[in-house]
């Protein structure tokens, strides 16, 4: 009854090309669909800001005043400013920053947009909409080129060489032991350095994979190796460059392509910033050349490398990885498929084509596991390890005994008790969508007590939510309490991977079980929950409605993930604040 050729029998190349094609089609379709909706519906979807009154327009940017901003826009997003109906006449701009207290929204000029300077009228009301940019077409050629290389095709098909050179391994191991790495880091790092072809290293949260990677790359580069380093985000690329620079001031470090928002910091770290198509490397000299996949795709064909290294490979789709794999014949993948997955927009019939390169390769070859967390104390590590890593994660001795500062006698003692590392602070509500004012108020008071009573510095606190609309509510709640939000991290899970704080507050935002049943695996992502909780060194507080833990999604993956949430909730101490912060408390 189904097609004779099942997804798992078809050629992977064809599946990947189909994936890219469908992503493109879906992006165009999504844009068309959005534009066909009334402004009000686009606002509810988080893809629009209406009633934005122009305050001033200058050469460097445009400032508007906005009453409500529940959009999903983040700094750097391509947007269009207009009347919300005529998209052809809308002005192409770039989303800057929004101040929830003053309601000021700053938009930047798009230097790549063509056309005359727009005429804008102060005092007039405008609508801010999303603009799409198609970038995936370039990856299709990479996929075709990759599968034309037998070594790459073999690796992706599960036939790759994973052995190592024993002599190189011994030398690498000795060097990494001297560098002070732990046994698992030494084993993984040395194996990667000595690989004949492929090495995979799984780095759960706080296990020092960036340090291990930096040590290994520096050793290789000092030995004269040319290394190309890639990751999906600029931040991930930059993190490894900075770690390498801290270890070795003399190494040649280059970032190609767009520098991202960290250009000044990279220059300060003596990282050369070079357009990809103009890269020149000295012969017989080691170097680390880094860039996102779209940058690497533009490197000149004559430049070749000894190793291609991929960090945060759990977030890297296979086509994007191939862009880097083409540049070398030894590949080191470092990542964790239990943390954030690749961002995929279309609804794909072939889920295997949407997996990250790390998860895909892990299914074939397994990975070396870094099993000691230097970040999380024993309590946090126990919960994270048990819930997401089958109990295989341990807290390093120095980290294990850490506790957050605590002065008894506060309102939230039961929540902030240092001996209860992970706690569920409940406020039952039935919000259907992406935001909960009830949770924002509770989270605001919790953070306020952390700072004012227990002396936790604001820069040691992160407040995380799955949705940007909730992030805005949280920022507003914190601002109203006089907490300096420029020193806290208040953001979505996607923006916080790789970071850590003493205290983490996670607000789940949605509360209606019936609405959550329909959203299934999109909301109930164990990976995102893992990343959120594991940012904490000593204390993680989940602020959520009981409704989250009652949902029964219809899709199997959603139901499985919801079961993980249920198990977690049952294992945690729960303190119920519904009487104070819940819906009935609001109505006078």
């Amino acid at each position, binding site marked *: 009854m189904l097609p004779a050729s099942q997804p798992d029998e078809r050629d992977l190349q064809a599946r990947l090309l189909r994936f890219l094609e469908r992503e493109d089609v879906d992006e165009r379709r999504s844009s068309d669909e959005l534009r066909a909706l009334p402004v009000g519906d686009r606002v509810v979807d988080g893809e629009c800001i209406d009633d934005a009154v122009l305050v001033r327009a200058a050469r460097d940017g445009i400032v508007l005043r906005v009453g409500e901003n529940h959009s999903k826009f983040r700094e750097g997003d391509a947007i269009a400013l207009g009347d919300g109906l005529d998209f052809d006449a809308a002005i192409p701009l770039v989303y800057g920053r929004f101040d929830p207290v003053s309601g000021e929204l700053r938009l930047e000029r798009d230097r790549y947009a063509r056309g005359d300077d727009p005429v804008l009228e102060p005092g007039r009301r405008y609508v801010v909409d999303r603009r799409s940019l198609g970038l995936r077409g370039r990856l299709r050629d990479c996929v075709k080129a990759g599968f034309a290389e037998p070594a790459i095709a073999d690796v992706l098909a599960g036939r790759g060489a994973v052995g190592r050179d024993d002599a190189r391994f011994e030398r690498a191991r000795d060097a990494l032991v001297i560098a002070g790495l732990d046994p698992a880091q030494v084993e993984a790092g040395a194996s990667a350095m000595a690989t004949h072809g492929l090495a995979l290293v799984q780095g759960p949260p706080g296990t020092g994979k960036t340090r291990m990677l930096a040590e290994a790359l520096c050793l290789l580069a000092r030995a004269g190796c040319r290394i190309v380093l890639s990751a999906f985000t600029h931040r991930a690329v930059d993190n490894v460059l900075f770690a390498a620079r801290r270890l070795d001031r003399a190494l040649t470090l280059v970032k190609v392509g767009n520098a991202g928002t960290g250009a000044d910091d990279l220059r300060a770290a003596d990282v050369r910033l070079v357009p990809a198509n103009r890269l020149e490397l000295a012969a017989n000299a080691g170097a680390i050349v880094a860039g996102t996949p779209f940058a690497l795709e533009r490197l000149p064909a004559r430049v070749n490398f000894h190793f291609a290294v991929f960090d945060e490979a759990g977030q890297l789709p296979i086509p994007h990885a191939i862009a880097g794999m083409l540049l070398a014949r030894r590949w080191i993948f470092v990542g964790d498929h239990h943390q954030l997955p690749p961002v995929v927009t279309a609804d794909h*019939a072939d889920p295997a084509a949407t997996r990250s390169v790390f998860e895909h390769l892990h299914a074939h070859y397994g990975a070396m596991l870094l099993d000691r967390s230097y970040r999380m104390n024993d309590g946090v590590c126990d919960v994270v390890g048990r819930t997401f890593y089958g109990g295989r994660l341990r807290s390093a001795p120095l980290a294990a005994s850490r506790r957050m500062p605590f002065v008894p006698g506060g309102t939230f003692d039961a929540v902030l008790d240092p001996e209860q590392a992970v706690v569920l602070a409940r406020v039952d509500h039935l919000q259907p969508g992406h935001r909960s004012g009830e949770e924002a108020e509770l989270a605001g008071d919790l953070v306020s007590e952390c700072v004012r009573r227990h002396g936790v510095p604001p820069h040691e606190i992160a407040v995380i939510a799955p949705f940007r609309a909730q992030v805005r509510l949280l920022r507003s709640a914190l601002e109203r309490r006089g907490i300096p939000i420029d020193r806290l991290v208040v953001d979505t899970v996607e923006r916080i991977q790789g970071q850590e704080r003493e205290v983490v507050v996670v607000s789940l935002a949605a509360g209606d079980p019936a609405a959550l049943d329909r959203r299934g695996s999109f909301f109930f992502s164990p990976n995102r929950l893992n990343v959120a909780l594991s940012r904490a060194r000593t204390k993680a507080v989940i602020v959520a409605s009981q409704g989250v833990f009652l949902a029964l999604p219809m899709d199997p993956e959603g139901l499985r993930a919801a079961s993980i949430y249920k198990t977690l909730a049952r294992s945690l101490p729960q303190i119920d604040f519904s009487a104070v912060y819940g819906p009935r408390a609001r109505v006078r």
Partner: protein
Amino acid sequence: MSRPGPKPITGTHLYTLPRCARAVALEFWGDASRRRPLRDDEEFLLARGRAHEANHVATLGWPEPSWPRGDFAAGAAATRDLLVQGAPGVSQGVLVGRDGDGDLEFVGIPDLLRRCDGASALGDHHYVVGDVKSSSRPRGDQILQLSLYALLLELVQGRYPDHGFLVMKDGREQRIDLPAFRPALDDALARVRTLRADRDAARPFFAAACESCRWSELCLPALERDDDLSLVDGMTEGLRTMLEIAGVKTAKGLARATVARLARDTHVESALLRRLIDSARARVASAPQPIERAASADEASGVLLHVLLDGFADRALCFAARWNEGGEPRFVAVCPRSRDEEARAFEALIAQIPADRRLLHHGRALRAWLVRAYADGASHDGIEDRLLDVDRRLRSCANWPAPITGLPALVRAGLGRDPHRAGRSEAVAGWVEHADVEARLVRKARADLDDLHALVERWLCGSGIGSGVTSDAGGVATTEGGIAHAAGEPA
């Protein structure tokens, strides 16, 4: 509702729970004589599902326990005997569970119990549980049902099975990691127990599932009588509760409310509240209220495409298209006689359609068919890029006086027509056995496309003004002449 006997909890209750808790409560407490009789198409689909199950089970040749009808205890005993004897498998075995007083609390009759190696209370072997399904992929409700069977099997063999399996409609087995779903089962059981103990534990809520629910004739009149908030388009159960806490208990009350007050009392974002209030006003006015949106040339000039599917057989039974040419409507339909003919039939249809126009369709079915039909990477010449789903656009182009749960609801609310006048979409699979199948399919496709065309023309391309459509309290639309405007207060 009538006073119930202590009906045991069955897999069907678990299966139904994700769709509607009220339906589960009615299964325990409701008067079965008041359930809507099965329609012919429903009878057909049920019979087909049973035949599929029977065919698969027959191929295995496993014994079936013999027991007097209705005597579940005897059935369970007979099943246990077969399991102790180590039968390679048992079909339609009976599993029961009792409460603390020894009364029958659970009854499960899984399609399949398969023997595996590994000690249990039965001996050096144990069993895992399986069920035969008519879907192509597993669903959460099916997994909950299977999980209940596993729980009951544990009572017999002293060991929770480490997996179960679902046999999908193409005969493939899907292994289910049952322990991973145990927390969901525990929650579901707790809720079903509550529904079994308290007839009022779940309130009715109007939703898409009501269209096919046999208890709808009990629930819907009650909702209308109460002017329930669930009859407002866009409402969710959580929103209803929050509005009620804030003192808004009826659609009329919502129509009179102000955004500012509700936002203050509910924390719900203003744009969503505004939409709900406007929908409530449309309900009070019994007429759709058009919403201003950007004009789209694609909508005005597009070709409408439609597909009639037999979901169980994964077959496209009819492709049809409608478009305007020189001011005159053109209609083409092609009915492939087998799965192998589908792609060719579709391409033959496309060849008759102007090549430069967008292909408008309603819902996911057509795109899903296209993705499946060309899954092996064969080219469909960019057809997918031309597709344009008008579902969301139609839902959001007006404030509708009733919840829009699908195309039939749009046809009622937006045109005042009976969407099933040429038959139900769910019934087309049963027409294959009829001599005039092609005529029926073409008639149905034409009626659907006429409706879609009218909706697009009136509500997307036009302003909706002059539609002259009103809806009566039951949500069935009637047509009047003249212009329909709603008198309402500004927000």
